[in-house]
Structure formats: structure tokens, C-alpha cells
């Protein structure tokens, strides 16, 4: 072996080690108001949602000199689990839901935010329900930085006026309206369930809305807690009620093939084509952002507005479901602490709210950009019965099976019994 070659390699190795060490020494030290350094953030947002998040943290970056390294993935659960298991978690991450949060918390991966955030201020600014949902064994391990109202049904006031359709007050009104539109030769609904690794989830929102309004909050709670079977009359009835819409090709634009292949973000767009391909679209409040991105120039209030999924059983009038984006801290660094504190402030949350597509869990945020967002926020606070998205509260295995069941049901509604029986099997297996 050539000795000079070996010597060259040794020199290279030593050099790279020295350079590496210098890099290590250059970690940030705080000077004045600027902390400097970086925070890695992992969350599920892409596209315009990602832009809104980056806009939200921009003032923080300017103010503190901390750089945000954002990484977005639709397969958050898998990516986050791998990173946490591999000992390389992001500093701060969006948590897929309260179920997963509890698992991370019980294995000691999440840092208690009790001494990171000013809890007295938090109790003052946040509704109790939102704080409680992010607690595990009395510890505040997560915090909602954004909220969404589930169950709005979007329509175009312009088109409704043109056809003299009226906004339905009850579920029966809604059914009558759907039938009326269908008999006029246009499909009343637009539905899209594709969402890469999370395909099927928009359907879970439908089922949840129906269960809560049809069988009430007690059945709803027992259901997500695994105490009420999927084959029970309450749950089966909800699927069948949904089936009157999705299983009828006259009811949904494009029928099942379109429902199954269309991305949830694009699925409402045919509502705005001329003539409209559909008149109603059930989706959480964030969807307005997708509307205006897909069809620039749409005016909230004129081109799109919403009514809440109507009450089904009057006993449970005013029931509303909602969800939110949970954030947790995996590494206790000064930069991560500062970011978490910043994200809970009304100033920060007002930025995203102002850009559209988000509601704020912080009661101090009142600056909604338009009447629609204000209406969403009001619908959430005015709810007589408020429940968090049930599928997010289920164990991972149950949630994943729920998503898949939605697709299987739309693909072949005649298999409902075997689909529900299979969900029962997963339920028996995954709640332990």
C-alpha cells in the first residue's frame, strides 16, 4: 500500500474532525433580545397551510434571531414515531392527535409545558376544554395553536339565490333539498376522500357529525372510548344515514370513482364551475383557504358561505364537533421554549387567522378577516354541545381502520355489515 495515500487519508480525517469540532463550538449564545440558533419543527402542513405557518413564525424569527427549520409531511404519525424512536426527534412537533399525544407522554418523550408556558395566562386565554384535551395525567404536554370547526356545509349563496334554494334548518330539510337538486338533474354534493396516507379521513368527519346529532354526546363519548360497538344500532344508523348521500350516484358528483380518487382539498372546486357540478360540500372550516387558492377571486359571503350540519334529533340541538392542531415539545432548548410561548400568544395566532383557513383557540383573538371566519368562530363558541373529533381521540389502530372502512364503504356500500364487524374486531383489540 502506498504510504503517501494513507497519510493523505489520515490528514483528511483529522481535518474533518477539527472542522466538526469548530462547528460544535459555534453554538449560539444569547446576547440581548436575540437568542439565535435554530428550532426544528415537524408538522403536517404543506402548500398554503405551510406558507401560513411560516408567516406566523416570521415575526418570531425577526425578533429573536431564531431560525425555524420547518419540515412538513402528510404521514406525520409515521415520520414522528420514527424520529422519536430513533432518538432524533424534532425540537417541536405537531402531534397527530390526543391519542398519539398520550402515548408519547406516557413514554416520557414529551416535555411538560407547565413550566414553559405561563399557565395562569393560558387558563385566562384558552377555553378549559382545549387545555384539558392536551393534558395527560394532569400535565400540560401539548397545546392547541390552531382550531377548526367541523361540520360546516359549504354552499354558494349566489347559486342558491339563482335557483331559489333555501338553507336547510333540519336534517329532513337537507334531505329534501338534496332530493330536489338531484331531481333537477345536477348532483347536490361534492365529496373527495383522497389524502395520501390519510385517505378516508374526510368521511370520518361526516360519521362523527351524524353520530353526535343523531344519538347524542353520551353515545358519542362511549363510541370513541371503545365502549360502544360499531355494529350497535347508533353507529350503524349513522353510516346508513351517510349512505343516503355517498352511496347514491345521483347525490354525489362523479359517483364513487370521483369520491375515492379526488383529493379532499380539490373536491369542493366543482361547486364554483359554471354551471355548478354540485351545490353543497361538507368540510371543516379550513377549506375556505383551498377554495380561494383554487378559484382566485371568490368572495366569501357571496360565492361561498356555510350552514352548520343541521340537527338530526332535536334532543341534541346545537351539537358541534371541532378539532385543532396540537403542538408538543420534544427537546428542552431555550429556542424551543421561546417558540412554544410565542405560538400560544394571541398576536401569533391572529396572523394565521388573518390569512384565512384557521380559527384560534385563544379567546383573545377576535380579528377575523371576514364574516365567514367570524361565523365559524362563533359557531364553535356558541355550541351547546361541543365534542372533539372522535377519530383523533381513538387509538391509532382504530383511527387507521376507521379511515380504511370509509373507503371500503364508499367502494361497496353493500358490505357495511362486514365492514362494521371488522371495526368491532379492531376495537376489541386496540383499546387496552
Amino acid at each position: 500500500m502506498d504510504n503517501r495515500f494513507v497519510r493523505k487519508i489520515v490528514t483528511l480525517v483529522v481535518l474533518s474532525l477539527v472542522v466538526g469540532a469548530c462547528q460544535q463550538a459555534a453554538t449560539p449564545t444569547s446576547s440581548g433580545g436575540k437568542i439565535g440558533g435554530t428550532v426544528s419543527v415537524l408538522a403536517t402542513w404543506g402548500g398554503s397551510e405551510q406558507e401560513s405557518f411560516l408567516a406566523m413564525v416570521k415575526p418570531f424569527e425577526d425578533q429573536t434571531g431564531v431560525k425555524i427549520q420547518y419540515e412538513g409531511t402528510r404521514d406525520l404519525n409515521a415520520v414522528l414515531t420514527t424520529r422519536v424512536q430513533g432518538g432524533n426527534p424534532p425540537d417541536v412537533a405537531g402531534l397527530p392527535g390526543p391519542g398519539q399525544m398520550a402515548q408519547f407522554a406516557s413514554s416520557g418523550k414529551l416535555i411538560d409545558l407547565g413550566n414553559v408556558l405561563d399557565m395562569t395566562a393560558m387558563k385566562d386565554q384558552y377555553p378549559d376544554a382545549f387545555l384539558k384535551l392536551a393534558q395527560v395525567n394532569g400535565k400540560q404536554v401539548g397545546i392547541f395553536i390552531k382550531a377548526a370547526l367541523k361540520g360546516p356545509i359549504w354552499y354558494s349563496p349566489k347559486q342558491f339565490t339563482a335557483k331559489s334554494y333555501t338553507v336547510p334548518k333540519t336534517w329532513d330539510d337537507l334531505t329534501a333539498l338534496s332530493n330536489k337538486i338531484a331531481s333537477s338533474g345536477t348532483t347536490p354534493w361534492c365529496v373527495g376522500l383522497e389524502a395520501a396516507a390519510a385517505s378516508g379521513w374526510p368521511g370520518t368527519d361526516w360519521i362523527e357529525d351524524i353520530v353526535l346529532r343523531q344519538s347524542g354526546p353520551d353515545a358519542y363519548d362511549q363510541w370513541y372510548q371503545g365502549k360502544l360497538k360499531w355494529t350497535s344500532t347508533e353507529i350503524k344508523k349513522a353510516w346508513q344515514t351517510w349512505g343516503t348521500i355517498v352511496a347514491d350516484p345521483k347525490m354525489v358528483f362523479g359517483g364513487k370513482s370521483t369520491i375515492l380518487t379526488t383529493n379532499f382539498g380539490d373536491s369542493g372546486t366543482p361547486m364554483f364551475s359554471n354551471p355548478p357540478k354540485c351545490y353543497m360540500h361538507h368540510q371543516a372550516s379550513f377549506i375556505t383557504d383551498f377554495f380561494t387558492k383554487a378559484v382566485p377571486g371568490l368572495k366569501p359571503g357571496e360565492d361561498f358561505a356555510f350552514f352548520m350540519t343541521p340537527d338530526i334529533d332535536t334532543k341534541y340541538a346545537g351539537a358541534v364537533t371541532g378539532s385543532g392542531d396540537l403542538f408538543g415539545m420534544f427537546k428542552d432548548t431555550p429556542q424551543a421554549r421561546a417558540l412554544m410561548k410565542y405560538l400560544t400568544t394571541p398576536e401569533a395566532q391572529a396572523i394565521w387567522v388573518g390569512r384565512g383557513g384557521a380559527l384560534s383557540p385563544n379567546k383573545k383573538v377576535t380579528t377575523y378577516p371576514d364574516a365567514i371566519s367570524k361565523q365559524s368562530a362563533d359557531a364553535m363558541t356558541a355550541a351547546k354541545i361541543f365534542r372533539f373529533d372522535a377519530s383523533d381521540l381513538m387509538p391509532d389502530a382504530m383511527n387507521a381502520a376507521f379511515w380504511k372502512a370509509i373507503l371500503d364503504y364508499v367502494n361497496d356500500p353493500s358490505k357495511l355489515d362486514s365492514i362494521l364487524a371488522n371495526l368491532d374486531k379492531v376495537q376489541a383489540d386496540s383499546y387496552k
Partner: protein
Amino acid sequence: MIDRIPQIAAAIVLPLAGLLGYIFVAEWLVGRTPARMRPRLRPWLWVGPALAFVGFFLVAPTIETIWLSFKNATSEAFVGVDNYVAIASDAGVVIAIRNNVLWIVLFTGAVLLAGLLIAILADRVPYESPAKSFIFLPQAMSFVAAGVIWKFMYAYQPPGIEQTGTLNAIVTTFGGEPHPWLIEPGNNVALIAVAVWAWAGFATVILSAALKGIPIELLEASRVDGANELTVFRRITFPLLLPTITVVATTLIIFALKAFDVVYVMTGGNFDTDVIALRMYKELFNVRNFGRASATAVVLLIGIIPVLLFNLRRFRSQEAIR
């Protein structure tokens, strides 16, 4: 990225330096032993790093996986064969196994056929190497990218709307109805077609090389004896290519058993397209059930063992010929 360069450099250089150091030290140590010991000692020292590497990165994790497959979701308690029972009674697993069989048969068959055909046809044209390079190009692409591209190709819009997917655009241009390729029965074939597209080049290149190795005298002699082209292929070319075809086939079968990326990207295993590797991924990362994920991995391993054994036996028989 820039700040990672020293680490990357170290990751490349350090193992190399370590290996070189090992060789020097090992040789030095061997040199100090009695001369008659050396022939016995030296092979072990040389093969040592490879053995340690395989042991640490392959054998140990395999044993660990088998061990974990008998434990519960969090690997805290033993549950016996519960995980295997759960897998066996899962209707989804049956579909996944069926699909893997479909992959083995269709994927391997189609790639071999395409590879053989292209290799033989390309052998007879002057523009052989550009043609082969063209066919080989997709092989250089990651499967995730291939899946994303083909997802666009298969995209579906309802009849009456402008089709955004290449395939449906063609179908509707000729007056057909758009077809939801990834959802309707037959979607497995649509997925396998993507993998065939990506792998045909691999088979072509290797089979083409083997084709070039067939002595031209043999072919000419048979032609002089009056054999037509088909007979030449059947009696001379094909038998001589057979060892190479077997090697390519086993590689393809192992790939078909491990099929994952294309399915994950394009359908997520929905609509009866699930495969075993994707189930393992879901059990591990989406559901965090380590026991069941490990058991699924073991099932996959058991499926691959016969192929490995076949490969080993063939290796040995070839060694014997030499």
C-alpha cells in the same frame, strides 16, 4: 446542508481509515504468530470485518425481530404466538399475501419477458446502445418518484370533465369512458405495470450481456445445419441464457416480495392492493404495534427463505462445475 459536510466527509473517510488500520494491525499480529499457524489464522482475520458487519447489521436484528414477534405491542410482555394468530385471522393479511403472489407471478414474468424481448431485438439493430439506455433510464429513478409520476398518468376525472391523467386522456380521445385505474379491480395490475416499467431495463441490460457471451460459432453452426431462427432461439440461445435468467428471476422475486414504495405512494394499500411489506410498515409506524410488525416481518422472511435456498444451491452447483 453546508454544516453537515464535515460529518459526511467523516462518515465516508472514517470507516475506510478504520478498515485500513484493521488490515495493518491484523497483518502485523499475524506476522508475530508461529509460521504454521498463519494459514489458519489469516482467512479469519480477513473475513472478520465482513462477518462482524453482517452479524451486527443482519443476524442480530433478525434474531431481535423474531424475539419481538413473541412479545406484545410495546415489547413489554410475552404473548406467545398471539401475534401470529392475529395475523392469520386477519382478512387483510390474506389479501396482502394474495397480492404478493400476484406480484411474484406478473412482475417477474413481465419483466423477464420484456427484458428478453428487448435484449434480443436490440441485438439486431445498429442503434442498440441508445435503445438500451432509453429502456434502462427509469431504473435510475427512485420508486417513490415513479409512483408519483404514474399517479398523474392514472389520474381520473368523471366523464364529461377534461381528463388530467395521460391514460384517461388517451382513452377519452378515442371515445372511451374514463377509467379509475387505481380503484377498480385490476388496480393491482396497474401498480405492477409501474414496477415493470422501472425494472425492464435491469433485465434487458443483464440478459443482453449474457446474449453477447454466446459464441457466434454455435449460432452459425446451427443455422448452417438448417435451423430456423425460432429453433435457434429455443435450442441454443434460450438454454444458454437460462442460468442468467434464473439469477435475474430470483432477484425479481425477492423484489416482488418486498414490494412497498409503489403501493404506498399510489394507493396506500387501499382498495385491495395491500402487500405484506406495507402491512408491516403500518403496524410499526401507524399503529406502533411492535409485536405484530415483527411477526409480519418474520412471515415475509419465511416467504423469502425458499428463494434464498434455491439461490444458494444454484451457486454451489455452479461452483462445482468450476
